[in-house]
């Protein structure tokens, strides 16, 4: 009896289960808080409990006397060993001390810290620090803030303007040297229908399951700093920690161990990271800080919070002629790493999926006495989608047109790609109409309309919403990122034929240990289990940028593939020498390396690997070993898109909305692992639906976060959702060899406007045209009862 070896399946495109999950769901992951270093001490921060004031006095004497307390630092002490924190955008920025030196500008800002033997003592001592403030006027409303009311937060930023009115779009020269309003004015002058609406894309708390944490270890003997942090980008952390400690980058190693979610809020390099590093260096001992949930609500950056004044001009037949968008971003008290850049992505994506002849956007960013904002899943693009799609929906309603048909009429057509937008983006590829048709069919749009109309006749409040989105992903060319926009990968064939690869992406939920292993297993035709993906440690991963902007597959995946190709070529050369064949005839197949047309000659993959490391004889002109690396710089971003449809029912008596249906059709180009893609979309949908329906960061007039715990800030749960109905279309990108676009953020884009549009549709019998998120039952109840219309 003969047995043939099992044939290895092709893995790209397969629903391979995440190899990360078995360890994570069994509690076997190692997070920052699981780490202990000998001699380690614990840090706790004293934080401001007021939103704005000058520090008159800090009394640390009681804290210093407590048993187990090793050191107490005030803002003034830290300012001596740490310069104000840098930002990563080219905008002017006020000094931002990691620990407030003389003024506090948001509730939760650090004012002092304690280093102690354990976390409990540290917290007790931090509580024993007494700070006396002279309160200053608290700036909460961004539109009042723009007029300097009721006060000014940073003295060199009059009227609290962090970024003062930046125009963009049709007629605006890239360097602002010329602003020509002719086209925009003409569009609005010729329009038969015009719609104006103020919309708020409100503030959210990112709430990763794992709060942040840092362990900094300065080793005086070696003069090296190792910093473990719950971060999305250890290489950026390494760069910044080196710079702020006056060290060379060769002296710093940054490690992101298991990271329990980031959602953009762990891109920023935070005060606590800098402070732990300088304190460790100053005291010569390792120090650890773990954020608790109460801190996480105020000390980790928030997301969104952009007001949009949107005007849309169209002909009666639905052709959109012009769009104006005046954006006001409430960025909170300080500029963080990417804060100022996030709303610029809202401007960049103002075209949506439409061929609009004239667009003008302006952006103003405003300081308020709130937690600073920064990236949050989607970062600027969901805001753009929300404003554009809500405006399109209002236009459809005004024209009494099917919202799908209005979109169809205005789509950028497949033959227009690559498409240069009015906003300066070049959309790589798209076939929007195809995706719309798939979505309408998947949802049974006509059937849904009939269902809604029937429900309406019964007196029920049922509404439908449809939204289309395009986002900018796969960031990106180096011109668009201060860090550089490439990614790095290294592939090593071990002596035993197993493959170890490193990636500069730093996955924290994206599943790249699985998807990248799928790619490499296919590339070398070896079993999936033989490939390991290492990441998140600058001591192991030579270079990298990190995970954000839905870039891992498009950029880091490609870098690994290119590194793999280099190694594969060298391995083929070793095989050619060993098998006495021509390199061109070498085939990698099913765990073996052989010669085309001579299957009997094939050797196990491991045998060739072994030969490469003990090369007797060493083929002429070759070095031993099998390891190589590649950097990949994409020529452009990618622009995935999709269509989301929802059905919502509102309880007439209570105003409570229930999401009845959600259909998501996404086009992220070619998919490496549809299972993981669906998981990413599910997560994004949860956050988009959460924003539309139940999540909102609410501040009171004193600048206190009223939704500062999960008792008041609603995190969406499985029971808040219907079963998602999903489908996909595939429009590959020409930007990378996989044709993959990126999908990490997509779910947040389409879901939010389509749900709000469904709510407006449901309440249209009451004459409502727009409702600001979140869909608070009381708000809807008021509309039903004749109030609160807009």
């Amino acid at each position: 009896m003969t047995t043939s070896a099992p044939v290895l399946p092709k893995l790209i495109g397969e629903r391979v289960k995440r190899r990360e999950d078995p360890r994570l769901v069994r509690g076997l992951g190692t997070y920052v808080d699981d780490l202990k270093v000998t001699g380690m001490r614990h840090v706790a921060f004293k934080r401001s409990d007021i939103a704005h004031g000058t520090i008159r006095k800090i009394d640390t004497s009681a804290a210093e006397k407590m048993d187990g307390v090793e050191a107490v630092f005030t803002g003034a002490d830290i300012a001596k060993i740490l310069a104000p924190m840098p930002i990563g955008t080219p905008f002017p920025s006020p000094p931002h001390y990691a620990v407030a030196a003389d003024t506090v500008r948001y509730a939760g800002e650090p004012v002092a810290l304690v280093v102690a033997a354990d976390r409990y003592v540290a917290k007790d001592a931090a509580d024993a620090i007494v700070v006396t403030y002279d309160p200053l006027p608290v700036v909460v409303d961004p539109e009042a803030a723009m007029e300097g009311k009721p006060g000014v937060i940073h003295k060199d930023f009059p009227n609290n303007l962090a970024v003062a009115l930046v125009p963009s779009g049709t007629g605006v020269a890239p360097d602002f040297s010329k602003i020509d309003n002719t086209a925009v004015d003409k569009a609005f002058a010729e329009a038969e229908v015009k719609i104006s609406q103020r919309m708020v894309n409100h503030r959210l708390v990112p709430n990763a399951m794992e709060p942040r944490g840092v362990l900094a270890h300065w080793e005086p003997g070696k003069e090296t700093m190792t910093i473990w942090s719950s971060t999305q980008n250890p290489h950026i952390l390494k760069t910044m920690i080196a710079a702020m400690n006056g060290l060379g980058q060769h002296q710093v190693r940054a490690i992101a161990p298991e990271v329990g979610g980031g959602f953009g809020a762990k891109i920023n390099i935070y005060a606590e990271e800098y402070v732990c590093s300088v304190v460790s260096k100053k005291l010569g001992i390792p120090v650890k800080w773990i954020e608790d949930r109460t801190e996480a609500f105020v000390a980790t950056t928030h997301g969104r919070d952009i007001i949009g004044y949107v005007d849309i001009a169209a002909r009666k037949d639905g052709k959109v002629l012009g769009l104006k968008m005046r954006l006001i971003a409430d960025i909170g008290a300080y500029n963080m790493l990417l804060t100022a850049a996030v709303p610029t992505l809202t401007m960049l994506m103002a075209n949506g999926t439409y061929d609009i002849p004239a667009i003008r956007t302006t952006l103003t960013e405003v300081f308020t006495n709130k937690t600073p904002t920064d990236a949050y899943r989607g970062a600027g693009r969901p805001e753009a989608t929300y404003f554009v799609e809500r405006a399109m929906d209002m236009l459809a309603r005004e024209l009494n047109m099917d919202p799908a048909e209005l979109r169809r009429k205005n789509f950028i057509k497949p033959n227009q790609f690559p498409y240069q937008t009015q906003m300066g983006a070049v959309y790589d590829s798209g076939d929007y109409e195809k995706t719309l048709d798939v979505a309408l069919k998947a949802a049974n749009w006509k059937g849904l309309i009939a269902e809604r109309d029937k429900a309406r006749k019964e007196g029920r409040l049922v509404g439908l919403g449809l939204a289309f989105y395009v986002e900018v992903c796969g960031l990106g060319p180096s011109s668009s990122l201060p860090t550089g926009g490439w990614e790095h990968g290294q592939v090593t064939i071990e002596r035993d034929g197993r493959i170890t690869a490193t990636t500069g992406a730093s996955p924290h939920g994206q599943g790249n240990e699985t998807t990248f292993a799928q790619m490499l297993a296919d590339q070398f035709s070896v079993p999936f289990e033989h490939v390991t993906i290492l990441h998140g440690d600058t001591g192991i991963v030579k270079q990298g940028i990190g995970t954000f902007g839905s870039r891992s597959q498009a950029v880091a995946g490609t870098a690994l593939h290119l590194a793999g190709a280099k190694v594969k070529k060298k391995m083929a050369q070793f095989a050619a020498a060993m098998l006495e064949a021509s390199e061109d005839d070498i085939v990698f197949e099913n765990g073996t390396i052989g010669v085309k047309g001579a299957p009997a000659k094939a050797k196990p993959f491991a045998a060739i690997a072994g030969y490469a490391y003990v090369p007797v004889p060493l083929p002429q002109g070759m070095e031993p070993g099998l390891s190589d690396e590649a950097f990949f710089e994409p020529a452009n971003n990618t622009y995935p898109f999709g269509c989301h449809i929802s059905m919502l029912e509102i309880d007439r008596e209570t105003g409570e909305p229930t999401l009845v249906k959600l259909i998501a059709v996404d086009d992220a180009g070619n998919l490496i692992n549809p299972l993981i893609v669906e998981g990413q979309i599910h997560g994004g949908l949860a956050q988009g639906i959460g924003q539309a329906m139940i999540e909102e960061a609410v501040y009171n007039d004193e600048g206190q976060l009223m939704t500062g715990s999960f008792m008041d800030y609603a995190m969406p749960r499985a029971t808040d959702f219907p079963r998602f109905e999903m489908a996909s279309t595939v429009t590959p990108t020409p930007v990378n060899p996989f044709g993959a676009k990126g999908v990490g953020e997509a779910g947040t884009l389409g879901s939010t406007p389509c749900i709000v549009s469904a709510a407006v549709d449901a309440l249209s019998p009451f004459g409502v045209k727009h409702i600001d998120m979140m869909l608070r039952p009381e708000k809807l109840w008021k509309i039903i009862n004749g109030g609160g219309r807009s």
Partner: protein
Amino acid sequence: MIPVAFDYQRATSVDDAIAKLTASGGKAIAGGHSLVPLMKLRLSEPGTLVDISKIPGLSGVKEAGGKIEIGATTTHAEIAGSKLLRDKCPILAEAAAEIGDPQVRNRGTIGGSLAHADPASDLPAVAIALDADIQIKGRSGARTVKAAAFFRGFYDVDLAAGELIVAVHVTPVRSAAYAKLHQRASHYAIVGAAVALDVKGGVIQSARVGLTGATTHAIRLAGVEKALAGKKADGVAAAVASAAGEAGDLNADLHASADYRKAMIPVFVKRAVERALARG
């Protein structure tokens, strides 16, 4: 999220718990799902915790002499899952099943819920509607308090230092129901109405109505009870119309204004009555 230091003692019996509470001046802990969050925010700083959750015989649902007894440390999940309650007194199982989320229901207890008396908690309203007897034990012996008298004010109940709730006794009622407007973050009640009816031939003979979430503490709506007597299904809406007025000063918070609560009280009382009527 880091509490101050405290001692922990585990009680082996109710008497042991009372002795330990008296000696230490500490606080009882059952499920810990109201107490521990307060401790983590340092809003409660007990020096000693006396754990009553493992006291033998203090938890469980049993029937005796036409009454149902629910031990103080019976968890919400046990109440929600009790076949006895689902058959004979479904309102309790139904209300417990709507508390918080699975983690909360697996830890939180009926005794803790009644003793803590959060203005938005569910079970106080149900206890009032069922005219429950709350059994209490302390140093000076045992006593029983009617639910409607037990809840006195904002986090204020008829329980002296060192006293424990040991059980809740109810006379089972099938035609009783609980209807609740959920606060979407915590799932506490914005407004919760519990109604127990005596129905004959589709006519309400008598009613008992408990309301939670709307005021400083769970209250009985005696006026609505009176208005419901003698009504059939078609008379319910009119009978409950005065419910909000009877409740008096209403809570207002981030999640709901007083006006909204005012409008929601009759809605949820009506829903509870209708559901109770449907149970026959």
